[in-house]
């Protein structure tokens, strides 16, 4: 194995330990009466809820359709899985250390089998919970079963159930992809040495980068605004000016895009506390470039026509803003000042309707 390949395997194996602290899978439930949603998170050793009492609530609802109560302690896999994963991590590190193809292939195949078995097991539990219903259930709909989808969305009576890997699950997916990349690369190297090595290493590196990205909470970073396509979350107007605007990334990983600092601030003021886990604004001097709102400097009442006519512009730092003030005028403020200021809401009141 090449040095790069060994590093990648080592990093991938180590990254998998994230599964001990991050949830692997999430099942979200949305119903008319639950606008805020309910959900379950499957961890490597237990099952919890999105919120403190969600699992209780879900069990409470399931009794109507006669589904068995979900009791994490009664699921033996939740006891074995931490051990199995631990063995995989340790052996993975050993494989990287040894650096020989044979042990690597064995390990990679074992990893793949464990992942497939894990998914199959999840599907099996889903099937059993969804089909093994009390014949005396209160609500019985002919032909209806309540197996959540393995991946994707499905309507179960008044609930829409959506099942996806959670952050820990994505780390595992990325690690598996990295290992698969190394495997392909190593196999190719054996049959056609040297020539493609660079490209293959690049592939494996990309996979590693993906692991790092997922670990580093990739969804926290803003995404580029598509001009003339994206609409402002607040005023619903199409975004046409790349010099203004911003994005908020919610704790659910949603990206909210805004056409102006005014709209972003108005949204942030009214959103429930803790909704946004990161807020970015566009640097006036570098159109399309995001800077964190917290550290940005702002000019308010500047001689500049911002989209919502609030005259607010953002700069990479307070210093940068201060430098521009000589030319643009206005007053220098910080993000917290904008959050505290409600006068800008006037601009949005009319357009929100």
């Amino acid at each position, binding site marked *: 194995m090449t040095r790069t390949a060994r590093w990648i395997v080592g990093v991938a194996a180590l990254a998998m330990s994230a599964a001990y602290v991050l949830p692997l899978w999430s099942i*979200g439930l*949305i*119903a*008319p*009466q639950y*606008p*805020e*949603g309910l959900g379950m998170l499957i961890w490597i050793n237990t099952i919890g809820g999105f919120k403190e009492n969600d699992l209780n609530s879900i069990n409470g609802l399931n009794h109507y359709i006669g589904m068995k109560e979900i009791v994490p302690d009664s699921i033996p896999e939740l006891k074995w899985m931490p051990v199995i994963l631990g063995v995989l991590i340790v052996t993975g590190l050993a494989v990287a250390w040894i650096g020989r193809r044979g042990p690597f292939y064995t390990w990679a195949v074992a990893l793949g089998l464990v992942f497939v078995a894990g998914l199959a097991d999840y599907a099996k539990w889903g099937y059993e919970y969804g089909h093994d219903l009390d014949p*005396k*259930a*209160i*609500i019985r*709909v*002919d032909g209806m079963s309540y197996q959540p989808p393995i991946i994707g*969305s499905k309507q179960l*009576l*008044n609930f829409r159930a*959506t099942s*996806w*890997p959670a952050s820990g699950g*994505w780390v595992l*997916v*990325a690690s598996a*992809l990295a290992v*698969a*990349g190394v495997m*392909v*690369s190593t196999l*190719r190297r054996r049959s056609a040495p040297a020539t*493609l090595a660079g*490209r*293959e290493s*690049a*592939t494996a590196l*990309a*996979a590693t980068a*993906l692991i790092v990205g997922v670990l580093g909470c*990739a*969804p926290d970073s803003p995404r580029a605004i598509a001009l003339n396509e994206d609409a402002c979350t607040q005023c619903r107007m199409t975004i046409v000016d790349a010099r203004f605007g911003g994005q908020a990334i919610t704790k*659910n*990983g*949603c*990206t909210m895009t805004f056409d102006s600092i005014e709209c972003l601030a108005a949204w942030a003021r009214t959103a429930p506390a803790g909704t946004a886990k990161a807020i970015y604004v566009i640097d006036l001097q570098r159109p399309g470039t995001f800077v964190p709102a917290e550290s940005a400097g702002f000019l308010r009442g500047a001689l500049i026509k911002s989209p919502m006519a609030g005259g607010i512009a953002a700069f990479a730092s307070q210093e940068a803003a201060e430098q521009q003030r000589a030319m643009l005028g206005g007053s220098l403020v910080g993000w917290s000042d904008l959050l505290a200021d409600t006068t800008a809401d006037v601009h949005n009141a009319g357009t929100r*309707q």
Partner: protein
Amino acid sequence: MVAQLQSRGLRYGALALVILGFAYACSNRQSGGALVGGDVAQRVYVAPGTHDEFYAFLSGGFNGQIGVYGLPSGRRLRTIPVFSQYPENGWGYNEESKAMLNTSYGFVPWDDTHHPALSQTNGEDDGRWLFINANNTPRIARIDLARMETDEIIEIPNAGGNHGSPFVTQNSEYVISSTRFSVPVPNTDVPIADFKSRFKGQFSFIKANEPGKMAIAFQMLVPGFNYDLARAGKGPSHGWMFLSTYNSEQANSLLEVNASQNDKDFIAAVNWKAAEACVKAGKGKDAPTDYLHNVVDEKSGVARSERIRSVLQLLPANCPGSVYFLPTPKSPHGADVDPTGEYIVAGGKLAAVIPVHSFSKMQKAIEGKEFEGELEGIPVLKYNSTIAGEVQKPGLGPLHTEFDGKGYAYTSMFISSEIVKWKLGTWEVVDRAPTFYSIGHLMIPGGGTSKPDAKYVIALNKITKDRYLPTGMELTQSAQLYDITGDKMKLLLDFPTEGEPHYGQAIAASKIKDRQMKFFKLAENTHPRVARTERETGVNREGKNVHVRMTAIRSHFSPDNIEGVQLGDTVLFHVTNLEQDWDIPHGFTIMGAQAGELLIMPGTTRTLKWVPSKVGVYPMYCTDFCSALHQEMSGYVRVSPAGSAVALTGTLSKGTSAAAGEKEK
């Protein structure tokens, strides 16, 4: 080359997965906030100083009262106290109204109101009275809509949980009550496990078309199921009553499971004209029982309770043709009759369809004896012989149906939290509107009668979650107003309500507002302790009771200084409001009074009972801001030790009644 393709594939694959993940996370939102737009604000805007188009009377659920609202604004106008004490105006606290809350179980200060029902003439709401049930301690009240005061309350014997009540026949011949919980009849000490053999259900037919004379005409004893809701027939089906049942399993424990096992329960169709004939022919029998009938005397304002010791009972088995069971899926909740009187719509809350029975098919089936069995002498008709159609895939948890009189029905869906509009006859769903959240009843003005006034439908919701500013652990309850004049229902307004708006009635304001009583004619006040002028006021002692005949007029009480009350006395303030003008009530209370205030309408007399607990001087004052000198409208009562030599006097300085106390002595 292969590797290149594979690696590129891998990269794109991973990227695709990641993007899918975020796409999911962001699609997982829903909002009702954005559903309202356009000219909605104008549609519900009632300019300052102008009146709403409809009165709405929404029950307060567990507050035991009725809330009066205007539509379309949703503005709350007033609370009419019915079954719960109401310190704001002294209902159930003052001596006149206490008797209204008497029951065979004693004085009951609270109840749970569910279903207001307007009185009808020729199948149309006439706006004379409003009836409403007390769920917990079974009673029905009649409210006079000219005064918006509760006038009469009758207790229902042999009932447990008066939920299926009151439902009015098309000329208010009867209001009907069915029992939610079957109980032993007569109620006595039996093991609960003997439910199936000893417990009975009953339908009570209460004569309701004469004020002050509500009376249980007869009670029909029926199988020990749970009875839920009902509607009277109309037009061709006039003379019939349709009542839903659940728990035909006759479970007495863990009903949520054990009463949900049968695929079909029943709608009971009662031919009450046939039952009347049987009663007339002497087929019923008087059974001993015990219940109260409380009536407010119109002239004196004083309520009296009458105890009644027997009730006429009729067994369906002794009156063939009076009751039939229509099998109906599954634990039906509502049993609603359309304006033509032909269709009976069942809201099978656990059913996957909305079944609709046909009255004409039912009659043919009865003629042709298309029975599948018999239960305690009651023939069970075949489902296929009575069913007119089923609304397929209506939503989840259908509960109640009302009608617009244009061929459409509107059904509330509890679980899927929506109103579903569908067409009678074709049974096709034509529109849906989400409700926020978990709608129970819905209400169209006149939507249960022969003549709906179908401009709006109101959703009466069970929970509000995120719809309003939060108020601690308990959030407001709410109703929602939808325009139904077009093809599509249109949400116009959310408005918060007092208590749980369980069900409601609404009626064109024009049918009520011009008949409102403005004040009571003082000359007609026959209260035994009335003082029609200040000359008639005074204080007198009857043993330990001190009676104060008092008047209130802007801005003084007469007398306003009372001396000679002794510790150990009970003081009764009989306060007459001498005003003869609209909107000039006076209030009255005294320091330490262990009761609600008196709120005295112009021309009426109300009595506050006060037992002073300490020696001293006690201020009393007017509590309803009546005039510029309201703050001056006050007085004192001096309380002396027992056996004191202070003479009993009631004085008003420079007033005509200064010597009145002496005079009465």
